[in-house]
């Protein structure tokens, strides 16, 4: 029997097609994959609250035909899958993962729709196993906003080591499969995962791409007694009596590299803005009068900001994790500090640049930069940016110097004759000695 539509009701629910199209438009392919890695990392955070991820793995395999990511990070509990993980948007009742990196409740779904037309999620926790298998085209035809478990086993024990989640996407979108086939795409993806998940990799999680282990790349700053980076750590006042947000700021000097230069921003250890050189992070502040626009002479500038909180919602990131929410009050306040912190570093780099242009051999700033060693951020002490150029050594004047001058030829001839010498050199030397002996010698 068919329900008659209520004439007083105006329909406002979304069509699935619209929803999917909107959802995937906002995200780049690589970012979508990073979101899936974020899910695995959140799994690691749930089962290893002490923060050591040794033995945990995330394996990514992709080809023109399919995409697969497998982790051993605890799996998704059936209840979480049933009520939260596959919903679009996260209900406020959902139990929170502390220091989570995926908090908007769109990451996994968005990634799956972005990649292809068929996906299968298989997850095993210590207490349950489920499989969800979705043909996206079929699902779109169905009015119901739900997925069905294809398999479901509850109430049996699995060893924690054998838990984990596998996401498999097949029937990839044409453009996605073509990208995956490119080796340059794989290089790009590798680099971006390495940058985004530095912190988790430092804590021991092993990530591989097509069986190749990714490398941990630490952030480093030049540090010595004569060249010290700035480091400040604080909890903004409004967060002090609630769930705290910790902010760490570093600014200093690194290797000369115009691409790597700028500010990088991390939220809960996840890179959201890399080597930014725009007004978002203060470059060109005050029309360029407070802080100059980025220029290659600042290729050694490095700034790092880390926002950390047990409650990911408090952090100033956007939903695609591709930047900061510049309207966030927290970010605005921190940005003010960034501007203040980068000024002395920029002054230093300007002086360093001027020293290079000056010529000569006396280059005290160049020397302290050359002699400073790179250290990891963890080894940097709190304090402001500081440099101490050694007092320039006065160059010792050379023991001998050359004099040359012009005189009329007829007069030179007369002097030559008077001195009984034949060369101009002798004329010069003897006249000088003559004056010196008569006027200067005691």
């Amino acid at each position, binding site marked *: 029997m068919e329900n008659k539509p209520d004439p007083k009701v105006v329909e406002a629910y979304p069509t699935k097609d619209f929803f999917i199209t909107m959802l995937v438009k906002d995200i780049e392919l690589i970012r979508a994959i990073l979101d899936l890695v974020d899910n695995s990392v959140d799994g690691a955070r749930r089962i290893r609250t002490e923060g050591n991820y040794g033995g945990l793995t995330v394996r990514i395999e992709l080809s023109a035909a399919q995409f697969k990511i497998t982790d051993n990070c605890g799996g998704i509990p059936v209840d979480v899958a049933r009520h939260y993980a596959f919903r679009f948007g996260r209900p406020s009742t959902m139990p929170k993962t502390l220091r989570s990196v995926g908090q908007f409740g769109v990451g996994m779904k968005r990634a799956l729709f972005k990649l292809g037309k068929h996906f299968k999620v298989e997850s095993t926790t210590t207490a349950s196993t489920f499989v969800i298998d979705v043909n996206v085209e079929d699902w779109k035809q169905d009015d119901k906003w739900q997925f069905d478990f294809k398999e479901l086993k509850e109430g049996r024990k699995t060893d924690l080591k054998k838990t984990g989640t596998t996401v498999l996407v097949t029937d990839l979108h044409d453009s996605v499969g*073509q990208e995956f*086939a*490119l*080796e*340059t795409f*794989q*290089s*790009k993806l590798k680099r971006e995962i390495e940058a985004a998940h530095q912190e988790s990799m430092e804590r021991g999680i092993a990530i591989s791409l*097509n069986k190749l282990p990714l490398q941990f790349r630490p952030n480093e700053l030049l540090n010595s007694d004569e060249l010290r980076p700035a480091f400040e750590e604080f909890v903004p006042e409004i967060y002090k009596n609630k769930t705290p947000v910790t902010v760490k700021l570093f600014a200093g000097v690194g290797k000369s590299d115009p691409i790597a230069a700028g500010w990088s921003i991390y939220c809960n250890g996840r890179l959201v803005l890399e080597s930014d050189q725009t007004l978002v992070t203060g470059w060109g502040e005050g029309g360029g009068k407070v802080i100059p626009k980025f220029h290659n002479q600042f290729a050694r500038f490095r700034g790092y900001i880390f926002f950390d909180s047990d409650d990911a919602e408090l952090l100033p990131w956007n939903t695609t994790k591709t930047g900061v929410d510049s309207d966030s009050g927290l970010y605005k306040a921190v940005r003010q500090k960034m501007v203040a912190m980068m000024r002395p570093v920029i002054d230093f780099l300007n002086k360093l640049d001027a020293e290079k242009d000056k010529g000569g051999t006396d280059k005290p700033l160049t020397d302290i930069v050359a002699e400073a060693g790179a250290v990891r951020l963890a080894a940097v002490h709190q304090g402001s940016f500081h440099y101490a150029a050694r007092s320039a050594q006065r160059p010792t004047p050379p023991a001998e110097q050359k004099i040359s001058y012009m005189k009329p030829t007829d007069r030179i001839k007369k002097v030559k004759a008077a001195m009984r010498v034949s060369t101009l050199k002798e004329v010069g030397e003897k006249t000088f000695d003559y004056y010196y002996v008569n006027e200067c010698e005691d």
Partner: protein
Amino acid sequence: MLGSSARINYNLRPSKHVERKMMCEAFRRLSEFGTVESYRYIGFGSFYFRDFALIHKALGISNMTSIEREEDEEDKKRFQFNLPYSCVKMAFGESSAVLPTLPWDVRTILWLDYDFSLDASVLGDVAHFCANACAGSVIVVSLNAHPDNRDKTPVNTLKEKVGENEVPVDLIDAHLKEWGKASAFRRIITNKVSEALNIRNGTRAQGSRFVFKQLFNFHYRDNAMMVTVGGVLYEQGQEPLVAKCAFDHLPFVRAGEDAYRIEIPRLTYKEIRHLDEQLPVLQSLELNANGIPAEDLELYSRLYRYFPNFAEADL
């Protein structure tokens, strides 16, 4: 040991000569796309214009541009003076600056015969060709691929030169030894081609998407170790045309990783004449050797058609 005077003067770069002639033979087969003489040739002619002379004489191409990065007015005059034929035009500037100023709606043979190693500008030139050249066009890239044995971190050096994203993820330092560097260069270049075509094809319908077929993968050394990679760009629908070109019948054509190594046999002029009189043969074993080592016989019987006719003077 033969006296060096009896042998071919290696300063004349015989491998390069052989390579040039082989490529010319392959270019002749482009006639399936359109008459070869209607093609345009773009190269780096230097003062000598050897490639220009060969291509004009052998293929009849007369739309020719030589790119030269020289900016000095006096040197520019010297290039103009040395132009071998009136149909060769000079274009001064870096190739990355000149290529975008040229029209690309004419079928082109572009030979980027760089006198340096792989860097980001080379990949930029390759990408420009792939994004703009019309079907039937050919690109060839020659590079110095000599390994620097003092470099302890060659992969990092390469990343700095070409950009990290261009370097395949599984490339390790050990891969860049000996001819490995040449192989890595080929891989990076063909990756760039695929990437650029992928982008170009994004707005094209199935059937008219561009495809690149690698034809050349030469390894050779006159002094330094060199690599030449090249191929033809065409539309999917032209597959039968490409088949008719029968590039694969040419013994030196290489469509993949496997390189064709050009090695020059050490022979005297008298030996060359002696062998020429007997050639062609199916197997070099059939040749009357007269003391010439078997491997030189083998090399020469493969190369003799492309072998330089050197006299003592290089006129």
